[in-house]
């Protein structure tokens, strides 16, 4: 045997020895040895006494929550309940925040600016641009997030999420994807970038790519507020007042469920085309149910999650507010920069049942989806100023009713616009952070491009279809 010990000699020896000990079986023998030792030690160290009362309760609960049919019903009700509480509970604090930030504080700031005799452009940029965008983000996002996150975290803490994954596993398997994709999908409901990283638990590269590409179809933090607002002021408004919150919640859940279906469809498509292969077998551990620590959950989900998400939105909204204000107040020829852009995209937007403002908002919001709604509101107001005959600053005190008025009267929105905005919110490119994360995780430009473009193609296709159908049937 070579013993001079250079690296290559060692490798060579290893190869020789591997042949002697019989390649394939070796791994199994190793595993067997580990399992035997572990079993022996565990057996000697653990003794069982008394009844397994709690275990029985856990099993009973599992039978219900992971039941073939009942499990899905519980899942639906659970989602509906969470969103109903979020929407119904956020109504009042949202209005109060809007009154305060967009009314009192906004007016006060303008008074200060006047008192200090700020030039118009400066007070416009600072107050109507930066401050307003930030204040809108806070009043639109803070109340629903402060209710949604703790509820979701409580479910997570209790141990419900792995049961959801268990229920969905069968569907993912049928789609030719890895069952663990349901876990990364759940993670995506918080943040898609985090969801993409969570796919590291999937060891087959093929299935991991499928999970990465489809993660964007989980509605993330930045998109929930858009859905909740649209659901509340457009869908909820079509129902009798007593059922308004329920209808609103149901519309949000519907979009989330459509997202899950799209995830499965796209996974099935990928696993039968570019990423052909069989679904691998794996075991999913159902952790024990643990009594959630309510106070601790409230604390961590409000301080950590809500405020972190809000802060990200605010840091994105402030510069975006400046850009929007500047671009809608700097004129080239007969229209502002934003006006030109909106006019340019308007025909395409109309074709999709949306409008130019929405498409511009989605371009502005590439860094963060959180600022879609503030951008839409600001652009609609500033560009529609002349039409509505309103002056900047007059209509800033927007509660939800007024948002509805602005969008329908000034922006010319219909129910179709709202529904298609909800669909487009689900089906459009990932935010820039997620795109960057996809590239970091795949190190592959092609798949990063696919993951970026595919959702837009779907979004354009779907909204075009719904718009065309709605128009053919004469609904709009």
């Amino acid at each position: 045997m070579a013993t001079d010990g250079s690296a290559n000699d060692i490798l060579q020896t290893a190869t020789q020895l591997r042949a002697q000990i019989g390649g394939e079986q070796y791994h199994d023998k190793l595993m067997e040895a580990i399992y035997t030792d572990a079993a022996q030690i565990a057996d000697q160290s653990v003794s069982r006494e008394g009844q397994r009362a709690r275990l029985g309760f856990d099993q009973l609960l599992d039978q219900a929550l992971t039941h073939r049919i009942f499990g899905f019903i519980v899942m639906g009700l659970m989602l509906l309940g969470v969103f109903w509480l979020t929407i119904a509970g956020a109504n009042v604090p949202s209005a109060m925040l809007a009154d305060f930030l967009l009314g009192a504080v906004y007016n006060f700031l303008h008074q200060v600016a006047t008192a200090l005799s700020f030039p118009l452009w400066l007070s416009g940029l600072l107050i109507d641009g930066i401050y307003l965008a930030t204040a809108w983000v806070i009043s639109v996002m803070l109340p629903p997030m402060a209710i949604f996150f703790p509820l979701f975290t409580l479910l997570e803490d209790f141990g419900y999420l792995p049961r959801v994954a268990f229920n969905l596993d069968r569907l993912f398997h049928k789609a030719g994807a890895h069952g663990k994709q349901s876990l990364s999908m759940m993670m995506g409901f918080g943040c898609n970038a985090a969801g993409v990283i969570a796919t590291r638990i999937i060891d087959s590269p093929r299935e991991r790519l499928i999970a990465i590409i489809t993660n964007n179809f989980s509605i993330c933090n930045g998109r929930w507020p858009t859905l909740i607002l649209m659901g509340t002021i457009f869908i909820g408004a079509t129902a009798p007042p007593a059922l308004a919150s329920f209808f609103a919640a149901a519309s949000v859940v519907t979009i989330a469920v459509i997202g899950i279906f799209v995830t499965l469809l796209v996974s099935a498509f990928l696993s039968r085309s570019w990423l052909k292969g069989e679904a691998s077998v794996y075991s999913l551990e159902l952790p024990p149910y643990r009594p959630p620590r309510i106070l601790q959950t409230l604390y961590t989900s409000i301080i950590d999650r809500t405020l972190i998400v809000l802060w990200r939105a605010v840091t994105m909204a402030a510069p975006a507010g400046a850009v929007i204000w500047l671009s809608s107040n700097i004129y080239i020829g007969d229209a502002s920069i934003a006006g030109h852009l909106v006019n340019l995209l308007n025909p395409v937007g109309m074709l999709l049942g949306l409008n130019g403002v929405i498409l511009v908002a989605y371009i502005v919001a590439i860094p963060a989806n959180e600022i879609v709604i503030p951008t839409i509101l600001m652009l609609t107001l500033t560009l529609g100023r002349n039409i509505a005959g309103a002056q900047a600053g007059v209509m800033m005190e927007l509660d939800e009713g007024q948002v509805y008025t602005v969008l329908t009267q000034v922006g010319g929105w219909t129910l179709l616009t709202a529904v298609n905005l909800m669909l487009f919110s689900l089906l459009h490119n990932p935010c820039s952070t997620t795109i960057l994360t996809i590239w970091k995780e795949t190190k592959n430009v092609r798949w990063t491009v696919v993951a970026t473009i595919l959702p837009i193609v779907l979004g354009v296709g779907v909204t075009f279809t719904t718009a065309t159908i709605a128009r053919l049937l004469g609904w709009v």
Partner: protein
Amino acid sequence: MTTQTETLPTTACATCPAFNSAQLRKLGINTEDWDYVVALAGNPNTGKSTVFNALTGLRQHVGNWPGKTVARAEGGFRYDDANYKLVDLPGTYSLLSTSVDEEIARDFILFGQPDVTIVVVDATRLERNLNLCLQILEITDRVVVALNLMDEANRHGLKVDERHLMRQLGVPVVPMVARRGEGIPELLNAVRQVVRGEFAVRPHRIQYRDSQIENAVHNLAAQLDARFPGLPNARWVALRLLEGDESIERALTEGTLGDLQRGEAIKSQNERMTMGVVGYGD
């Protein structure tokens, strides 16, 4: 959130040297000037992040589902006049497969050469958890086993003999209920003992019960020892080479493995791994 007071000794413990000599100071994300590196490993959903939070005072998101931590999280704490850097690794069932999270955990334990690896073990599923624990003991003998979720084990009528476990594994075993901060002082004490070499570790060695394998491992390990004297885990490296593990073969030819014997891998590895650390709050 575990508060500071819960981790401090009660007055009843004041006479015990293990308790009164030391105090825990949580340093949050401040991991500068560390004296020792401690890794947190274990199966998914055993409470690694809970232990991490209890020691560092950070609030790494804790969720009741497997696979939540897929990147490393780092934090610091000060205990008994020494600064510790704590690294929370992704939860894995084994170190032998090819998923990215397992590779991150394994590479850190191997190349990061932590001064201590705390293996968080679920007392209610001891056998399956020991599979990973035994694999880690093959890589490093500087291990402390945190026997977590003792309350759930009791509720299920399971009694775990931690003294027997300690004798079998040859490393300190600390029963804990991390969620309530129980066992944290004992854990810190055990970590200190291992760091200072005060606990004579005699790690369990897996018996392969196959003379051919044992011979092959023995031969290859001897050759590795000759080439890299002082390599802390020649036997384990030999096992991996026999299986044709590509990342270990690469480490061998590229010289990363050679760095291990001189303890130089830490720096280069840390530089390489920082690229993989992602700081998402949830």
